[in-house]
């Protein structure tokens, strides 16, 4: 395990600037999640670190050495791909042993065997070692894929949406397992996803990526509670943050220059009845909570509400802001 430092990284594909002036320092043993929509440059960043792409400019340092001229095999990284993660012509065992059998590594067979079995237990696939890789369920395949990365002790693990092709339940389970394993091994891990839940639950720090630029890096709490820009605020929170004109709702204290107010559920107080300034359009019942769709003049808001809150569609309510987020005309955070 080692520190990985990216400095001023640029990569262009034709007319698209995939990665633009990217700076990021990943500390030893840290779990960093890059969060961003499709095309934000997440995968390109991973591929640049792995050596599958060459940067147009910038530096990549792994454990203090500049790896610019090194082939992927020399960089001492492990990669979990989103798809096509296993070699289809090999068994689970052969897949797990493949990185260890690389001619450059020269490990003894019993050492390889010991490590394969240890990792197989860790990712809970030891009962299927002799199965062909193609005869596994989706979840088992991704567990093997993660295992194939873990079987080595590289400087950094790079994971490109490894859970995105799985169903929600499995994704939840593997999320927990991955975090447990990472803690157990003390691994340095750079994980890419567009799923905010994965980012929030697993990351030590989250990096928000948009159009090839790193918008903000911080702990999940910082990114959620203290976003530096409108874009970052919009990436996190379920339901989506409500973006409103500065003077729409009372209760705020907008600093000079405020163009937009960002209000999540926790920034909104709802009182039924008196002094109503809003109307409930309809309510989505999710079971443990409700989504309230609210109309204020011609603006629509969505917020979570306690299922016991006594409101019905058509009811008039009073909506007040409580310490919301303020943004200027350029989308930068104020105050």
């Amino acid at each position, binding site marked *: 395990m080692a520190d990985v430092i990216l400095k001023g990284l640029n990569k262009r594909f034709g007319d698209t600037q995939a990665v633009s002036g990217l700076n990021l320092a990943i500390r030893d043993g840290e779990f960093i999640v890059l969060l961003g929509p499709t095309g934000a440059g997440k995968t390109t960043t991973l591929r640049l670190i792995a050596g599958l792409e060459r940067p147009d400019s910038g530096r990549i340092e792994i454990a203090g050495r500049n790896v610019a001229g090194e082939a992927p095999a020399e960089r001492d990284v492990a*990669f979990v791909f989103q798809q096509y*993660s296993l070699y289809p012509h090999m068994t689970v065992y052969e897949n797990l042993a493949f990185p260890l059998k690389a*001619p450059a590594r020269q490990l003894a067979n019993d050492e390889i065997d010991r490590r394969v079995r240890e990792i197989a237990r860790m990712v809970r696939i030891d009962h299927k070692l002799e199965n062909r890789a193609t005869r596994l369920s989706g979840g088992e395949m991704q567990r093997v894929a993660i295992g194939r990365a873990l079987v080595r002790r590289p400087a950094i693990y790079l994971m490109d949406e490894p859970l995105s092709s799985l169903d929600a339940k499995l994704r939840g389970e593997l999320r927990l397992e991955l975090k447990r394993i990472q803690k157990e091994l003390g691994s340095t891990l750079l994980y890419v996803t567009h799923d905010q839940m994965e980012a929030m639950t697993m990351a030590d720090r989250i990096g928000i990526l948009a159009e090839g630029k790193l918008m903000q890096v911080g702990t999940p709490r910082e990114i959620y509670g203290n976003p530096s820009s409108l874009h970052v605020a919009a990436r996190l929170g379920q339901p989506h943050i409500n973006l409103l004109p500065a003077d729409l709702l009372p209760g705020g204290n907008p600093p000079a220059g405020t163009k937009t107010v960002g209000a999540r559920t926790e920034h909104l107080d709802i009182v039924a009845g008196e002094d109503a300034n809003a109307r409930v359009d309809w309510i989505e019942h999710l079971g443990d909570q409700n989504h309230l769709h609210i109309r204020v003049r011609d603006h629509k808001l969505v917020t979570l509400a306690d299922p016991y809150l006594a409101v019905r569609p058509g009811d008039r309510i009073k909506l007040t802001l409580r310490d919301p987020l303020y943004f200027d005309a350029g989308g930068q955070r104020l105050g």
Partner: protein
Amino acid sequence: MSSANSAHSVVEPSLTSKRVAGAIVILYALITLIPLVWIFLTSIKSPPDSISYPPKIVFTPTLEGYCNLLTTRTRQTPEYIASLPAPTGTCDEVTRKRNMVIAGPSNFLPRFVNSLVIAFGSTFLAVLLGTLAAYGFSRFRVPLADDLLFFILSTRMMPPIAVAIPIYLMYRELGLSDTAIGMILLYTAVNVSLAVWLLKGFIDEIPREYEEAAMIDGYTRLQAFRKVVLPQATTGIAATAIFCLIFAWNEYAFAALLTSGEAQTAPPFIPTIIGEGGQDWPAVAAGTTIFLVPILVFTILLRKQLLRGITFGAVRK
């Protein structure tokens, strides 16, 4: 794909249409098989039976054709033959009945070996070069790749025999006439374009993530190619090999033009088998029958790959 979309293709065909299709297939098989059966029957007829008219369907089978194919014989007086010790094999016996003795082996076996060496040699080379070129075209940004691929394909657009005279002259100058290496090079040159195009399709289908994973896992590109790409390309390589082999094995025109002795292959040799008083048809038929065997075995062994090679591009994985 939803089941509704593909419903028309999974409906069981009706019994009548199955029967009609079956009848057509059987009829077609009969039509194509009759010449082959005829050749085989001729190969086990005696020379008089083979040219009798009307043709004989019922006859006493004999191995004379095979004996004549594999040996050279000289005519002897009955007294001399009677003075010889008892015949040591079937061929001895058959030959003596015609008042002849075996003088030695014929040229068939060396010609057959030439065919094997040249056909398999050129197939190996064409598939090897084709695989490497196809991998390059598939994975790397080759300058002018499309034009190069078109150029490679365009070499198939003229009938090979159109360049017979230039090649004949070049080969004479280079000392490649009537050499196995010359024929291997020639057949490789003809086949390599087919190999590149077929194999590029197969390699394009293998996701490049596999090699990238292997390269990150500590392998060089060449090692990744060998351990990850090749095993997954075996189907395509087998199909390509069959096509190349069939061409090289059956090729007649260049073989007749460029080989006459040392490197002569079986196709130009077989028609030159002359018996006493004309063409020795059973021997010719025996040569043809033996000549068919390797391709038959090879094709049966790899028939699944061949089928996939033929329907290649039409079937999505």
